[in-house]
């Protein structure tokens, strides 16, 4: 560890660390376009110039390595002027069309522009015209006039996905980003370039003009599209008097799981959050009430010979309560999962599509196969906890706990419960990392959570925390709940 001085204030940091990283980690304002934690430094934008004592010229923070006693200034008059002048150049050929830009509110250019108070343009020469709305493929639109040529998108396609679809063409002031003939942006992670783009040059066709970002509430959550459990933000509508609507999933940085990225399929799986079933309770194909179906279920559990099937995407807490229920009424719990070899790769995407298979196995639930089919013969009640693999070999009483439209709407009794985007919980991914997803405090939920329903069936009042804590020693290496709430933890395989 070494001590450096930034604007005369000491900061302790790792020796030889990249200065820009230290500044960012210490919340010191440092404008930058081309540097990105996931891509490293490129040194092209020159926005991050800082003054370094003993150096004749300003130096870029993204190519400066710290050493003991380094003295840096980010706020001296001359460096502020330099930053401002470079920003002015970035804006030289920019169309300044913020009112119609999707990036408004999360655009570095716009933020810096306000920071430096660059309101009156001195530019009196014609702007360099380029293409405005290029469809690159994978739902991505490019506006070349807004591009600051930071090359993040190009570097992503060459260094991270190694698919090389995006290139810079031309030279000098005529340089522009594009795909080349016969190429479309088509890798399964392509949409990450939208988040990487520091300005509004790359935007999502899916999100275009639908919502201004300042009306959104961002919730820390976890993608449920495969067993990798990538950390995400869910951007919900947070406007008053509007029904909750999920506008997008965005990657959330988590070095233990997904780094900075998520796959496009996971990103687009936000749509499923808007397709949940309406808040209803069905008993024998008729709309009923929660209380009556609860009573009905308890009665059946006492009298019938039951078997349960759980989706391997239920949260840790949900599965634990199912386990409690199974011990109370002595039934077996089965799970099933889908494996899609074509989906999996060696980056993020896992071929196992369920997000909590690990826990299902950990709790000793049984895999659906022959014995399940056989044991069904002697059963008279099936409990289905949101599994899509449910089959109904013969007319048999069935209680389902569902987030989405089920297969047997007509013949089952159904509890509707809240999908993960409006709930909280823990998941363990295929690498044995346990993470938490949170519930938005702003978005009001109308449905019951599965935890509440299970508590009611058990006549208990567990919270997410208390049910986890009860079992943490047995199953979870004694890792405290509070620790997982802060950061993912590794359980190991």
């Amino acid at each position: 560890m070494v001590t450096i001085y930034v604007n005369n204030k000491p900061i302790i940091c790792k020796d030889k660390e990249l200065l820009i990283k230290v500044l960012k980690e210490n919340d010191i304002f440092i404008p930058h376009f081309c540097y990105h934690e996931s891509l490293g430094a490129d040194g092209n934008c020159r926005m991050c110039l800082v003054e370094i004592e003993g150096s004749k010229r300003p130096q870029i923070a993204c190519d400066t390595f710290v050493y003991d006693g380094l003295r840096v200034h980010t706020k001296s008059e001359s460096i502020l002027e330099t930053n401002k002048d470079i920003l002015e150049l970035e804006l030289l050929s920019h169309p300044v069309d913020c009112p119609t830009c999707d990036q408004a509110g999360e655009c570095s250019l716009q933020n810096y522009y306000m920071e430096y108070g660059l309101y009156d343009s001195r530019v009196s020469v014609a702007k360099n015209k380029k293409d405005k709305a290029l469809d690159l493929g994978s739902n991505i639109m490019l506006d070349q006039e807004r591009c600051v040529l930071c090359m993040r998108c190009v570097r992503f396609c060459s260094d991270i996905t190694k698919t090389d679809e995006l290139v810079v063409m031309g030279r000098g002031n005529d340089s522009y980003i594009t795909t080349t003939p016969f190429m479309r942006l088509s890798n399964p992670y392509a949409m990450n370039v939208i988040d990487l783009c520091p300005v509004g040059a790359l935007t999502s066709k899916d999100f275009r003009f639908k919502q201004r970002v300042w009306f959104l509430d961002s919730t820390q959550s976890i993608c449920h599209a495969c067993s990798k459990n990538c950390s995400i933000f869910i951007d919900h509508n947070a406007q008053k008097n509007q029904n909750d609507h999920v506008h997008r999933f965005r990657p959330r940085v988590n070095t233990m799981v997904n780094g900075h990225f998520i796959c496009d399929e996971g990103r687009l799986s936000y749509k499923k959050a808007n397709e949940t079933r309406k808040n209803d309770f069905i008993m024998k194909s008729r709309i009923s009430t929660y209380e009556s179906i609860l009573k009905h279920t308890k009665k059946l559990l006492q009298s019938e010979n039951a078997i349960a099937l759980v989706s391997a995407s239920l949260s840790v807490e949900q599965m634990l309560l199912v386990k409690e229920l199974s011990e109370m009424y002595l039934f077996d719990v089965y799970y099933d999962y889908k494996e899609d070899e074509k989906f999996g790769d060696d980056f993020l995407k896992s071929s196992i599509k369920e997000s909590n298979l690990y826990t299902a196995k950990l709790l000793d639930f049984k895999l659906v196969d022959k014995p399940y089919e056989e044991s069904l013969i002697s059963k008279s009640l099936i409990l289905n906890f949101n599994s899509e693999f449910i089959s109904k070999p013969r007319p048999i009483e069935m209680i389902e706990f569902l987030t989405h439209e089920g297969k047997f709407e007509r013949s089952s009794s159904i509890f509707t419960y809240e999908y993960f985007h409006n709930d909280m919980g823990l998941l363990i991914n295929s690498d044995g990392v346990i993470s938490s997803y949170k519930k938005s405090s702003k978005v009001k939920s109308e449905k019951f959570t599965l935890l509440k329903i299970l508590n009611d069936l058990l006549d208990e009042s567990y919270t997410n925390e208390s049910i986890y804590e009860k079992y943490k020693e047995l199953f979870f290496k004694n890792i405290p709940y509070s620790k997982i709430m802060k950061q993912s933890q590794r359980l190991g395989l």
Partner: protein
Amino acid sequence: MSGYTFSAENLKEIDKLLKRYPSKEALTLPILWMVQNDLGYLSNIALREASKILDMPTSHFYSVASFYTMFKFKKSEKVFVELCKSLSCELNNSDELYEYLKTRDDIELVRVECLGSCGSSPMCAINGKYHENLNIKKLDTILGDKDAL
């Protein structure tokens, strides 16, 4: 669409060069030159073939080629005249040559930066060949002799 094949001679040259450079990628400019010398421009099909030979994405060839002013993505149908517009030539009246050349519709004219003939300016390159110490009369004679171009 028919394919593009590199001549046996070029393939032999590629083999020779592969031994000289530490990495295949370095053959990018040589291979682009081979295509352009052959076709007069860089065709999509030829670039795809080049990408197979060097085991690099085609996009690489487009991006690289577009950086350099001499590579063309379209064939010039007419006599290709590159008139130097840099300072020594301008001081020696290249503008006059420009005004003259603009009036000719039998040529494709571009103004380029210094070609290293400042000591014999003004100058232009016609189909790549240098012509120096020019004046309108001289230029007119050169362009008149189509066979010699």
